[in-house]
Each structure stands twice: as structure tokens, then as C-alpha cells.
């Protein structure tokens, strides 16, 4: 099944490629993105930034697509510490988590435990990513303590379905939201998040003696990915995420993470936050940092991050994105090409006459130029 009729897929790919090519052209105009990976100079905005420009690896002779070493702070090792949790919050969350895990299955026996947290209640940074499949919203969010004690907020988001639409320069699909949040508000959210993420839920059926037990299965059309990283003032880190099609079978894994994300949103600034359509260097660092969260992602999760990389990618992501060129999912390869074209400034998607080239030819070019031998 799948790509049983490659001609039809290529027709569709060509259409998507045309749209994403327009999108990249738009990104180049709006984001002042220059070809750092090709040795070009950074934009004025990048030059003014306190963030150092990525260190470009020495390109092999003739290569048009090379990555760069990351300038993002190296992820701190996960802690093995065991900080106590609020008894009041544990009492509040236990029945909530049990109810949500149980769903429609009245016979399911659910146990919720909160052993302790790897981070203390003093927040330094929260980083997260959320992707809704089915063409929904993809976002990465960062909250980091600033010198004045408050927290700087950054969010990059894109409604993925809009990437398939013609580019409307007055309403670009990418949004960069920035703001400031009082420390107290972040501390409250952090406390709920670290408690939620500490939850360990077990669910099982115990049939009565001599009887059989078979509970219901709930399934859905919705796929989601949530990844979260909490860092406390002492540098300890906790990471936890969920990825899958929403259903009853893995509710014990999903419920605490969903709750933590909801708590995260309560720390976000109000609607009057600054919304921009231009990526700043810090936005690119945020996306870079999120890319290292979690492990291997399913196609819908990877597609969401690739969509964001079209607007906020950076040379250190060339390596990870190049691996997506080998995906068996057409949308992933298409988005990977679009992201690499934006990051490197080298766009191989159109032929000399300006017509879209077949996706397989374009992918082959990027594999040759971008992949690490």
C-alpha cells in the first residue's frame, strides 16, 4: 500500500514543493536569514545578538550543505535526586489522575503514586514541545529566568495545515510570541508540573475468582506529542514526554504529561504578548534545544518540528534534519527538504526554468550534500 502509485504521489509532492518553495522565499525575505552554513555573513539582527553565531564546520570541497556545532548549552544530566513533593498537590492530583486514567473502564483498578521529584521547587527553566497530528498546531515553548528574576517567555508556533495553503504574506503561518512572566506565577506552574511529572500510575484488571475480565478499548483519530524538560535553580533536570494516538491503553503514561503541559500553559503570558513573524537567534536556539528532547519521533511529531524549522531552523539542525530525508513518509521528506533549503540558503527544489523537480531527485541531492558520510 502506501506509495503504490508513485506518479500520483509525485504530483502531490510537486504541489507541496511549490507551496513550500514560496514559503521559504517568504521566510528569506521576512527573517533576514542568510546562508550561515555556506559561509555567508549573518543578518544584522543576528550580529547584534548576545548569542554567538553557530560554529560552522569546515565544509568539504564543493558541498553546499553543511551543519554546525550547537551553541546551545549542553543538556544537564538527568538528576538522581529525590526532592519531596507537596502533600496537598499529591492529594489533589491522585483522584484526578485516577479518574482520567480509568476513562470509561469502571472495572480498571488504578494506583497513583508520587515517589518524589528529580527537581526542587525552585525553577530556572522550562522547555517544551507540543505537536498535534492531523495538520494541527505545532509549538515549542521556553521559559527562562532572567537577571531581573522574572522569566522570559518564547514560543514558536505554526498551524501545520496552513503550510499547504498559498502563502499570504499578511498572515504568515509562523508566529513568534515573546513576553515576560512574574517569577511567582512560574513557580506555581513549576510546582504542579514537577508533581505531575513525578506521578507513576499503574492500571490493571483483577477479575473475581472463577471469572474472566476484559475491559473496553477506547481509540481515536488524534495523535499528539508532548515533550517537557524542567531545570531547577541547582541545574538538576527532569524530562518526560508522551507520543501516540490518544486512547485508553496508554492513558497511564499520557495523563501526567498532559496535566503538566496544561500547568505549563498557566505560566504563559497573557494574550497581549508581543507576536512577531521574525525569528530571533534565541528562537533558533530554543528549537535547537527542543530537538534534543525525547528520542526517535514518529512522523507526525517530526513533521511538526520540521515545519517549525522552516522558520526557525539553524545550521546545528542540518545533521538531525538530514536523517529525515531517509523517512518512508512523504510529508517528512518534503518538510525536511524545505527546512534544509531555508537553513542553508541552497534551494534545489526548482529546475532552471522554475518548475518543481521530482521530490525523489531533490531528496537525493540533499542526501548527497547534507548527510554526514
Amino acid at each position, binding site marked *: *500500500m*502506501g*506509495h*503504490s*502509485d508513485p506518479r*500520483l*504521489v509525485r*504530483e*502531490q509532492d510537486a504541489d507541496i514543493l511549490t507551496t513550500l518553495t514560496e514559503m521559504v522565499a517568504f521566510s528569506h525575505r521576512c527573517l533576514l536569514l542568510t546562508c550561515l552554513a555556506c559561509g555567508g555573513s549573518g543578518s544584522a539582527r543576528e550580529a547584534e545578538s548576545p548569542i554567538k553565531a553557530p560554529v560552522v564546520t569546515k565544509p568539504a570541497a564543493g558541498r553546499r550543505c553543511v551543519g554546525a556545532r550547537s551553541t546551545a548549552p549542553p543538556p544537564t544530566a538527568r538528576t538522581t535526586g529525590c526532592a519531596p513533593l507537596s502533600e496537598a498537590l499529591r492529594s489533589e492530583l491522585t483522584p484526578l489522575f485516577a479518574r482520567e486514567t480509568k476513562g*470509561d473502564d469502571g472495572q480498571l483498578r488504578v494506583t497513583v503514586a508520587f515517589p518524589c521529584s528529580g527537581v526542587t521547587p525552585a525553577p530556572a527553566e522550562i522547555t517544551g514541545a507540543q505537536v*498535534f*497530528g*492531523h*495538520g*494541527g*498546531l505545532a509549538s515549542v515553548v521556553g521559559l527562562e529566568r532572567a537577571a531581573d528574576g522574572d522569566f522570559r517567555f518564547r514560543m514558536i508556533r505554526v*498551524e501545520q*495545515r496552513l503550510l*499547504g495553503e498559498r502563502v499570504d504574506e499578511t498572515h504568515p503561518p509562523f508566529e513568534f510570541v515573546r513576553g515576560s512572566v512574574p517569577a511567582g506565577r512560574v513557580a506555581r506552574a513549576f510546582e504542579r508540573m514537577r508533581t505531575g511529572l513525578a506521578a507513576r500510575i499503574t492500571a490493571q*484488571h483483577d*477479575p473475581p475468582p*472463577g*471469572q*474472566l*475480565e*476484559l*475491559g*473496553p*478499548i*477506547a*481509540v*481515536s*483519530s*488524534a*495523535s*499528539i506529542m508532548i515533550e517537557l524538560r524542567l531545570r531547577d535553580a541547582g541545574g538538576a533536570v527532569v524530562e518526560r514526554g508522551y507520543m*501516540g*494516538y490518544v*486512547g*485508553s*491503553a496508554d492513558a497511564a503514561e499520557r495523563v501526567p504529561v498532559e496535566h503538566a503541559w496544561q500547568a505549563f500553559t498557566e505560566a504563559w503570558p497573557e494574550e497581549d504578548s508581543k507576536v512577531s513573524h521574525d525569528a530571533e537567534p534565541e528562537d533558533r536556539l530554543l528549537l535547537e534545544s527542543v530537538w534534543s528532547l525525547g528520542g526517535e519521533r*514518529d*512522523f*507526525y511529531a517530526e513533521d511538526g518540528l520540521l515545519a517549525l524549522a522552516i522558520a526557525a531552523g539553524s545550521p546545528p539542525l542540518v545533521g538531525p534534519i538530514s536523517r529525515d530525508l531517509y523517512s518512508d*513518509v*512523504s*510529508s517528512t521528506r518534503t518538510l525536511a527538504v524545505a527546512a534544509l533549503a531555508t537553513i542553508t540558503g541552497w534551494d534545489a527544489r526548482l529546475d532552471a526554468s522554475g518548475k518543481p523537480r521530482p521530490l525523489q531527485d531533490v531528496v537525493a541531492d540533499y542526501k548527497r550534500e547534507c548527510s554526514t558520510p
Partner: protein
Amino acid sequence: MPFQISPAPELVAFDIYTKRDSAPSKDWAYTKSNITPSGVAPLTRPGGVSVASTFTVTVSLNRAQSWVLKAHLNDTKLLDHERLHHMIACCVGLKFYNEVSALVKPKLAALQTELTRAKAEADNLFKAITRKYDADTGSNTIASQQAAWATRIRGWYASKTLTF
């Protein structure tokens, strides 16, 4: 009625979904299906233990939790995509019913183990098919693939044979 479907997938319409003005996910619709076994009693028979003839599986659309944006109530392509998600659940539910009905084990405990395994396999099968369906169709953005999958899923449903 040992295997039931409610409603039949071809009768699924957005007027039975919850209508929303907007969704935080920015998705346009959400379909939730329940595969619900009942009457799961043991029956001792020559050769061991099986489930009794009271065993039933019902596949239903969760109307309260399935939703559609009001702006897309008349989107027939979206409806067909969502309808096929429910049809996949129906096909998986029938396969699950047939497998459980055919189980015979020497001891009750062994039968319970097999029931638990069959349930987990049904869940995994639904997710594997759904993932492939969404990946191939670009979540309903690649018309040719959507049409191919519609033929495939409707074939499973009509023949009562799921081959994936």
C-alpha cells in the same frame, strides 16, 4: 447479536458530533471510537475453557467526545476521512471478536492471559493502521492516497476480513 456496530460507519455524520467554535489543537475534527466487550463469562467445554456465547463486542462512536468545528460541518472530505477512522475501529473490533470467540485454553488463567493479550493486540493494530493511514494520506491532504485508502478500508469492512 454477538458483534454490533453503532452507528454503522456509513451512517456517521457530523450532526452527531459535538460542535465546537474552535479547538486548541487547531485540528478540525476528532473521532473517538469505543470497542466494548461484554458478557465475558467462562464456559467449560471439551478441551478446556472458552468465553460463553454471551460474549459480545460493540463498536460505537463516542458521540459526546467526538467533535467537529462548526466551520467544517459541511466538509464532506473531512467527514469521509473521519468516518474511515471509525471504520478501522469497526474492522479491528470484528477481528478482536472473532479471535476471542475462537480461544480455547486448558485453564481459566491461561484463557485470561490470552484475553489480555488479544486486547493489547487489537489496540496496537488499530494504532498501526491509523498511523499508516494518516502517513500515506498526509492526514487527508493527498487525494489519491485518500481514495486508495478508502477503497482498502471499505474492502475490509465489506468482506469482514482485515488484512494488514
